[in-house]
């Protein structure tokens, strides 16, 4: 009886839902105000939200909306263009000699480079208890011990909040935080090479035993100077023009000493009240809820200055509607809710049901989604009819990244710099038909690499000029892979006619280290087949990422798979993957030159190019470096993946930016359209429940009859009659 009542109650709820004007299957609580909310998801809880620690793309999606570095990127312009963000203008760059005097002679040796940064005047922090002041101007929430702060368990428990202007010293303070070893910043070692005095500062503050807040303002770093409230300088060793790109990362966003002190209050860490989980910034949004286990909520920062949507962009932006909001004050939404969604099916389903505004980053290897969403049409990939009827739009971009299989240049079989070895590697690369590979396994959702520099980054040339002539010919206005016969001939010239060693007769056998989770059996079979076209055998050595990395660090590999995502849009960030001193075997560190490519000419020209400002001379050097990579055939193959978001029809200004994640403020949502479509797409299907219930009753009836008959059974068969 109870069961029947419960079932009836559930049915009643479902039936009522069918007749109501809201959606029962909505995962979101009902909106209680008319603010515009953007709904999205994240797949892994962020590890760090402290701008000194965070170095992961999925974390940047959150904190880059909150923190503002001195520089940023123009939302619409391509190639990517730096622009002032917290700074009033681009930094003023001064070159200095050993004595610290300004250099006027262009050819003089540059010992130091000084960046002078002038800040915007209306840069204000979000409201936060760290800035709350008492009547006497003292900070309200500074506690002597954990007992004093026991009443405060979350940020919301603090009744008072304050704010203040972000000043130059806050930016300087953050650089000092990068240098403090206690903060474990990933940039500590790297920036130590550049920022003057950082290493020494790190040593001094690292040696100080502490139990609580250490005011870093009490210690000087020689490369940092506060000129006035709105101006500061950073001095680095030598010339390093790429430093401006680092100034566009959240590592250099301001952190006020009050914030640092607030979170170092006794007992706060035990309540997870840390800057690593509760960011405080000057950006368009502030974090109002951080439950990394379920959801993160960002809301409009009431103290955000007036910033306007850009009124110029790249060709085609106007037609695509990306300039329709030109001149509008930012941000265009009031709130953003990110929910933890680990599995693909729920994420995709909620997107199609209209509960997530965007699909999240879609890779071609998320097959279930990809196959549903796309078909290969005459023009390449197209949205399927079902998706088109949904009104979905695609935001697509070649990500400034690459995946590649590299040769170990120290390997006795495939490594080396003789002409024979070059021919061997070139033959293998010719046999590896990248176009075929990306068509089969990525539905054409990638671009075969002609150089280590991806499209959209200066140095990558388009058209005939940009092809790798060792592997491709230019035919019918497109690159065409050279023939397999050429590959066989090169292999023979390399000493392996028909894939066998000319001297020993042994077959050539390649060993490829792959990460087990990153490659399928089908892909491995395909590679094996392609190599067998040359008579070459392949053996795979699968391992997890930790073991693979161990092999790379020790050079214990022949061919390995790897990937690289740009930190900044400069060819230097890709070509340094081939820089000799970056080899793990040379630097005894986690260097990026996993092939251990060692070419003195390359290294010299790379070092020269690295220190040059943009211009034709630098472009010429880049072309030479790319040519060396092609000639030496350092990688077996490489490609640049295409990645994209799918957007529901009520999402506007969704242009992808390959480098910057600070794009949330430009998004516009039409909430009315969203509500209408959610209602249309989520009408519940009741009949299975009703049918199931009816079926259950239908089954129950004969069971009850059988039971009664059984109860009335007697020993005499004649007496077993039904009532």
């Amino acid at each position, binding site marked *: 009886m109870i069961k029947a009542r419960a079932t009836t109650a559930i049915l009643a709820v479902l039936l009522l839902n069918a007749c109501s004007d809201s959606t029962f*299957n909505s*995962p979101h609580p009902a909106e209680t105000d008319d603010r515009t909310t953007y709904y999205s998801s994240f797949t892994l809880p962020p*590890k760090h939200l402290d701008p000194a620690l965070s*170095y992961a793309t999925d974390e940047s999606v959150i904190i880059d909306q909150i923190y503002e570095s001195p520089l940023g990127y123009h939302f619409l312009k391509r190639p990517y263009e730096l622009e002032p963000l917290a700074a009033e203008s681009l930094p003023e760059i001064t070159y200095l000699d050993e004595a610290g005097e300004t250099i006027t002679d262009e050819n003089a040796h540059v010992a130091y480079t000084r960046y002078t940064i002038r800040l915007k005047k209306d840069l204000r922090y979000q409201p936060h208890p760290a800035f709350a002041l008492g009547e006497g101007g003292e900070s309200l929430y500074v506690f002597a011990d954990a007992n004093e702060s026991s009443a405060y368990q979350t940020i919301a428990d603090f009744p008072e909040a304050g704010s203040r202007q972000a000043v130059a010293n806050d930016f300087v303070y953050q650089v000092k935080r990068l240098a403090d070893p206690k903060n474990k910043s990933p940039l500590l070692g790297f920036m130590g090479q550049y920022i003057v005095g950082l290493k020494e500062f790190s040593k001094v503050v690292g040696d100080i035993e502490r139990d609580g807040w250490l005011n870093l303002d009490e210690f000087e770093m020689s490369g940092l100077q506060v000129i006035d409230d709105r101006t500061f300088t950073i001095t680095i060793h030598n010339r390093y023009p790429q430093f401006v790109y680092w100034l566009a990362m959240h590592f250099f966003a301001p952190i006020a000493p009050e914030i640092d002190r607030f979170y170092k209050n006794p007992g706060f860490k035990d309540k997870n009240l840390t800057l690593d989980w509760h960011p405080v910034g000057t950006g368009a949004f502030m974090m109002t809820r951080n439950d990394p*286990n379920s959801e993160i909520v960002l809301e409009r920062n009431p103290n955000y200055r007036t910033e306007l949507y850009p009124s110029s962009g790249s060709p085609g932006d106007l037609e695509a509607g990306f300039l329709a909001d030109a001149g509008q004050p930012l941000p265009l939404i009031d709130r953003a809710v990110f929910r933890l969604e680990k*599995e693909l099916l729920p994420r995709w*389903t909620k997107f199609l049901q209209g509960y997530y505004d965007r699909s999240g980053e879609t890779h071609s290897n998320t097959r279930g989604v990809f196959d549903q969403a796309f078909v290969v049409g005459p023009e390449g990939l197209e949205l399927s009819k079902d998706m088109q009827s949904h009104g979905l739009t695609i935001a697509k971009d070649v990500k400034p990244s690459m995946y590649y299989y590299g040769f170990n240049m120290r390997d006795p079989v495939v490594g080396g710099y003789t002409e024979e070895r070059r021919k061997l590697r070139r033959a293998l690369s010719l046999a590896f038909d990248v176009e075929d590979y990306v068509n089969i396994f990525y539905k054409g959702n990638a671009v075969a690499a002609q150089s280590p520099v991806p499209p959209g980054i200066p140095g990558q040339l388009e058209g005939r000029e940009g092809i790798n002539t060792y592997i491709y010919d230019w035919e019918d206005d497109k690159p065409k892979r050279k023939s397999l016969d050429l590959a066989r001939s090169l292999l023979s010239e390399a000493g392996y006619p028909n894939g066998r060693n000319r001297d020993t007769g042994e077959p050539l056998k390649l060993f490829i280290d792959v990460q087990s989770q990153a490659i399928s059996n089908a892909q491995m079979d395909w590679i094996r087949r392609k190599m067998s076209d040359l008579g070459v055998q392949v053996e795979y050595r699968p391992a997890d990422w930790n073991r693979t990395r161990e092999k790379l660090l020790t050079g214990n590999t022949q061919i390995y798979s790897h990937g690289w995502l740009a930190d900044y849009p400069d060819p230097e960030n890709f070509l340094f993957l081939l820089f000799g001193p970056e080899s793990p075997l040379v630097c005894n*560190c*986690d260097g990026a030159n996993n092939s251990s490519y060692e070419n003195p000419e390359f290294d010299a020209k790379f070092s020269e190019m690295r220190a040059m400002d943009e211009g034709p001379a630098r472009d010429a050097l880049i072309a030479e470096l790319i040519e060396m990579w092609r000639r030496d055939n350092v990688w077996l193959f490489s490609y640049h993946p295409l990645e994209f978001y799918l957007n529901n029809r009520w999402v506007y200004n969704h242009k992808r930016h390959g480098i910057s994640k600070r794009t949330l403020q430009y998004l516009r949502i039409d909430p009315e359209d969203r509500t209408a479509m959610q209602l249309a797409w989520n009408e519940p299907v009741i009949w299975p429940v009703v049918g199931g219930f009816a079926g259950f009753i239908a089954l129950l009836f004969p069971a009850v009859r059988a039971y009664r008959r*059984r109860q009335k059974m007697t020993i005499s068969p004649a007496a077993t009659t039904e009532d």
Partner: protein
Amino acid sequence: MFAYIVRRLIYAVPILIGVNLLTFILFFIVNSPDDMARSQLGEKYVTAAAIENWKIENGYDKPLFHNAEAGGFYAYTDTIFYTKSMRLFAFDFGRSESGRDITADVSQRMWPSVALALPTFVTGIWVNICVALMVVMFRGTKLDRWAVLVFVSLMSISYLFYIIGGQYMVAKLWRLVPISGFNPTADAWKFLILPVVVGVVAGIGAGARWYRTLFIEEASQDYVRTARAKGLSEIRILFRHILPNALIPILTGVVVLIPTLFMGSLLMESFFGIPGLGSYMLDAIRSQDFAIVRSMVFIGSVLYIIGLILTDISYTWADPRVRLN
């Protein structure tokens, strides 16, 4: 009974040390402290100094088991194993490798786990017992044989299939409930219906088949024949006589699970987006967070031991002939 419980608790100490040791060895076979540092530092531009600094700050700069540089007793205490594991016995879980307080996280995340596991557990047992008793009522008939076939089929299907199938049918095709998520308010039930139903259905095959075996064995006992001869209804015989007498083996399998309900379910929580301890553990394994992994294994072991003690105690309640000494 008190002395028995104390004795069992003392026995638990070497078991927990063994579990800790095993967890430690297994974890560090797969991950080294350097791997953990790289994972936390973000993989790029990581210098040897940054890795070393991370290890010092997180206490992974010591040898794993034996510190030859430290003399005497300190050779064993000034090690990663000792410093990281022994504090667990004082229920001091410390911080995760990313800096969060584990005790705070566990106390926050166990409630969503319980919210999912408890109704699944209670409903599952109730449904399994009812179904098994119904089948026993028709034992020897075609219905019984078909039921066994269905049970075996149900238990042969992967748990993942139930989850994905349930999500696909109920949430995606029929749009009856949210496909995943959790809201710790009065609305929580609408997120829990589907995982609870999936959990119950997925457990029917194995549960009902096992209970059927137990009940059939009891149904052939003399006291059942006597009860039937007295004219008692079949339902009364099943629920009032057979069920209580079959309780001991049921309790053996069930009571031990009660404390572990707090630990949640790795798969269910991950697929249904429930922020419980199951998904906490899964995330920790993925991000090579040894501090969380060892704490969760330790908590799981303690709860399991508590479950075993509770099982023994429950025997005395189910069968007055049982004495703990």
